[in-house]
Structures are given as structure tokens and as C-alpha cells.
């Protein structure tokens, strides 16, 4: 039982990352009918921006100029990095995707791959081929709850991710921009006919997705404080899987699918030899897709790309 609960805690944290990254992926995929293969790398950029901001704030704090407690630095780091990373997302949209909005989807997809490579190599050129260590902003405290070990960081990560997911959900359900996003996901061609500027919505979609990726990147840095320029690739692919698994146009679906993938990976490794983890985990996901080809909440959809 202890064994099970320990893995449940592990899976919650791991799933949070998949869910957060999948959200941004799913938003772009749903709203713009675009596989944003650069999203994993935006997550990486977000983590590095977070690293830069946090290191700067720690230095500022240490110099005595502005003494801040660690949690305050973390909050500021998250907010500032979200802001900065959203610009990266908007630039990617403007430079990489907008010129290709009416191009074949395959062209737009390889654009994502290329932008991803550019972000990775850009990082290499800027910082060199070394891994950086994310500054420990909060003192790690481990609680032993009847044999199950939980750290304050884990609790924080899960809660922060869940609140951002909830905030996004409310934004999409309750605001007119959120409404416009849902409308675009359904039929983006007619959206301008209601006086809604498509480009603004597209930019906003990228900005929000990137900001969430930045949050994921920083939380990742808190949990796994070793960053490297290629850390986003695997996450990009897995978020892609989660976005499809969740179903096109469903934020809830992407969130659930992200958590589910975290759970599957952790629990498969719990039951089977860890060498077989990915093989078994992704066979399960493949099986789910065979029975639900449109994902959990996706509906059969025929893209009408013209009026």
C-alpha cells in the first residue's frame, strides 16, 4: 500500500509536467490546426529563461540590494519568465507560422521542427554545451507520512500546475478571448466574419501556451535541477502524444491525458522491469488510440479550410 501511494505521489508530479506542456501543444493544435513541434523547445527556453531570471534575482538578493525570501524569488521568476517566454512564442508564431497559415500542414509542421533546432542550437551558441544547475530557491523539506515520502517541492509543483490548469480552463470557458479560441478550434475560417482578428487570437494562443511551458520549465528546474539544451525534445514528443490522446479542442482532455501518461509511465515501471517501461507504456497508449482514435474528448472532425 505504501508502495502504491509513493508511486501515486511520484506520478502526480511527473504527470503535472506532461499535462502542462501538453496544454500548450493542444491549444495550438486545436485552435490553429498546427502541430507545433517547437513546443518542447519553448519549454526548454522557458526553463533557461527561468534559470536566468532566478540566478539574477538570487544574486540581487545576495547583494543585499533587495533581500527577498526564496519563495518570493520563485514567484517572481515564474511571473517574469512567463512574460518573457510568451514573447518567444509570439515571435515563433509571427516568423514561423503566420506566413504558412494557408500552406500545406506538412510545411507548417517541418517549420516547427526547424524552429526547434534553431532554439536548441541558439542555446548552445549562447551558453555553450554545458548543463546548468537551477538554483535551489526553496529549501527541500521531506515529510514522512506513514512511510510515504513527500517533499514540499512536490506538493508545490502539483498545486501550482493544477491552479494554472484551472485558470486556463476558466479563461477559455468564461472570457470572450477564450470563446474566440474555442470558436477557432471549431471552424477558424469563419471567425473573421464576426469581426474577430484571427492573428490576435493566434498570437494569444502561442503566448499562453508558451507562458505555460515556461511555468512547466521552472517547476521542472525546481524538481530536476539539471537543465540541458535538448531537454525539450522528449517532452515535445510526449506532449504531442498527450495532446492527440486528449482529443482535439479539449483542454480538459490534454490535461487528463498528460496526467494519464505520467501515471502509466510510473506505474508500468512499478510493476514491470524498468527496462520495458516505455515499450509497455506506449503500447498501452497505442491501444487506447486504437479504440478511441479521436482521443478522449475529441470529436470526429473534418477541417473545412475554406469558406
Amino acid at each position, binding site marked *: 500500500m505504501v508502495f502504491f501511494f509513493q508511486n501515486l505521489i511520484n506520478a502526480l508530479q511527473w504527470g503535472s509536467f506532461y499535462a502542462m506542456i501538453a496544454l500548450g501543444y493542444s491549444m495550438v493544435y486545436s485552435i490553429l490546426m498546427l502541430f507545433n513541434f517547437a513546443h518542447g523547445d519553448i519549454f526548454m527556453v522557458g526553463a533557461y529563461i527561468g534559470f536566468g531570471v532566478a540566478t539574477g534575482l538570487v544574486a540581487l538578493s545576495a547583494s543585499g540590494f533587495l533581500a527577498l525570501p526564496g519563495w518570493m524569488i520563485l514567484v517572481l521568476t515564474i511571473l517574469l519568465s512567463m512574460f518573457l517566454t510568451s514573447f518567444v512564442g509570439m515571435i515563433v508564431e509571427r516568423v514561423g507560422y503566420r506566413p504558412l497559415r494557408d500552406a500545406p500542414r506538412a510545411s507548417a509542421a517541418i517549420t516547427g521542427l526547424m524552429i526547434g533546432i534553431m532554439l536548441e542550437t541558439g542555446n548552445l551558441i549562447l551558453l555553450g554545451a554545458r548543463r546548468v544547475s537551477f538554483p535551489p530557491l526553496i529549501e527541500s523539506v521531506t515529510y514522512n507520512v506513514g512511510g510515504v515520502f513527500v517533499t514540499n517541492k512536490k506538493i508545490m509543483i502539483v498545486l501550482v500546475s493544477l491552479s494554472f490548469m484551472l485558470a486556463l480552463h476558466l479563461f477559455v470557458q468564461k472570457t470572450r478571448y477564450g470563446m474566440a479560441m474555442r470558436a477557432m478550434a471549431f471552424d477558424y475560417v469563419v471567425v473573421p466574419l*464576426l469581426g474577430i482578428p484571427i492573428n490576435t487570437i493566434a498570437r494569444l494562443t502561442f503566448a499562453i501556451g508558451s507562458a505555460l511551458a515556461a511555468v512547466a520549465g521552472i517547476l521542472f528546474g525546481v524538481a530536476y535541477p539539471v537543465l540541458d539544451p535538448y531537454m525539450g525534445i522528449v517532452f515535445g514528443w510526449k506532449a504531442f502524444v498527450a495532446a492527440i490522446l486528449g482529443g482535439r479542442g479539449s483542454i480538459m482532455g490534454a490535461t487528463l491525458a498528460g496526467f494519464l501518461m505520467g501515471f502509466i509511465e510510473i506505474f508500468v515501471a512499478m510493476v514491470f522491469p524498468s527496462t520495458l517501461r516505455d515499450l509497455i507504456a506506449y503500447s498501452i497508449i497505442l491501444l487506447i488510440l486504437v479504440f478511441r482514435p479521436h482521443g478522449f474528448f475529441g470529436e470526429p472532425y473534418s477541417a473545412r479550410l475554406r469558406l
Partner: protein
Amino acid sequence: MLLSIQDLRVSYGRIKALHGLDFEIADGEIVCIIGANGAGKSTTLRAISRMVPVEDGTRMTFMGQDLLKLPPEKVVSQLGISHVPEGRRLFGNLTVLENLQLAAFARKDKDAINRDLKRVLTIFPRLEERLIQKAGTLSGGEQQMLAIGRAFISGRRLMLLDEPSMGLAPLLMLSVFDALREINAEGATILLVEQNARLALQFSQRGYVLENGEMVLQGDAKKLLDDPAVKTAYLGG
């Protein structure tokens, strides 16, 4: 003139869809364009709402403003030209109310938006019963009402309607057109394209006949109804 168009040319790749149309619409009018399938009716509406690119030489002005300088969303939000596309194209994943609210996306005048919303629901009382229902679950007639209501809110100095009668039972068709007449009486100018030529001409004041991308006839709607050529070609003899 509210809308004046000269030499409207549109091509889809190598295929020429419109070969230089000239027409005008005055404020408060109801005008229809009739023609066979593929004559270029829908393309004409798309050109006005800037959803398809036009060729050089085309001139389109709306209340003296150059339409060609505006992107599609500004045509709606700045000039008040709304467009009910063929097949209605509602957002089926949004509720009826959300579809209507979304139509006011670019508008800031809250009181006026609420007034318009109420007005739509008085014109189409059936929508009021379905406000929190997903638009995808509506019947064909209700969908048409919602599409018109949406256009009413997003802008109605000029409303472009693409086949409003399509797929509707005759009785529903009449009630939709009655509603449109009511909207017109309140000041909205209407340009509609229809395959149902008789209905369109009876409803309109003026009409244009489009054939293979060219205006072949135009004039008073009642006169077109009696025109022998129109009769044989579009009114079933």
C-alpha cells in the same frame, strides 16, 4: 451609394470566377443576386467581406471608404458589413448564447450589445428557449435564425446572406424572410444570393442575374420576375 463595386474580378488559381462585375447597393435596399450553381454568387459575397483576394483593377467602396484596404475582421467591425456564409457555419461546440456573444467580440458598447441581444431574441423567440444549448444541436431552421442573429449583432449596415433558404421547410423559410424584412425595416441593408430565384425576387426590391461570372441582367425585382429569359432559366418556365 452605400456599396459600389466596379470591375470585380476574382480567380481561384487559373480558373476565373468573376469577370468584372459592376453593381451598387443603396442604403436601406434589399437586393438579390440570382444565378445557377457555380455562377459566382458566393464568390461575390466573399469578395465583399474580403475573404477571397480580388485582382488588380477591382474597386470596391463602402460609404466612400476603400474596402480593399481592410482585412476581413475590420470589414465587419469598422464598416458593419456582416456575412452569413453558405451552410451557416455556426460554432457547433459553443452554446447559442456564446455564438451570439462572440458576434459582439469587437464591440465595446455594452448597453447596445445587450439591446441587440434582446432584439434578436424577440425576432427569433425560439432561440431564447435554446440559449444554453450547443449550437450544433439546433434544427436547420433554428441554425439559420442563429446565423442571422449573429450577423445582426456583429454588424448590420449591410448584411450579406448566402442562401438563407437552403434546407428549410417552406413555412420556416417564410418566417425567416419575414424576420429579415423586419430587420431591414429597422435600417439594415440586405444583399442576398439565392438559388431559389422566385423567393429571392419576391423578397427583394432589385435583382441581379449572374451567369458564369458575369452580370447578364439587372433591374427591378418585379420586372425580373416577369422577364421571359429569367422565367425560362430560373423560375421553371
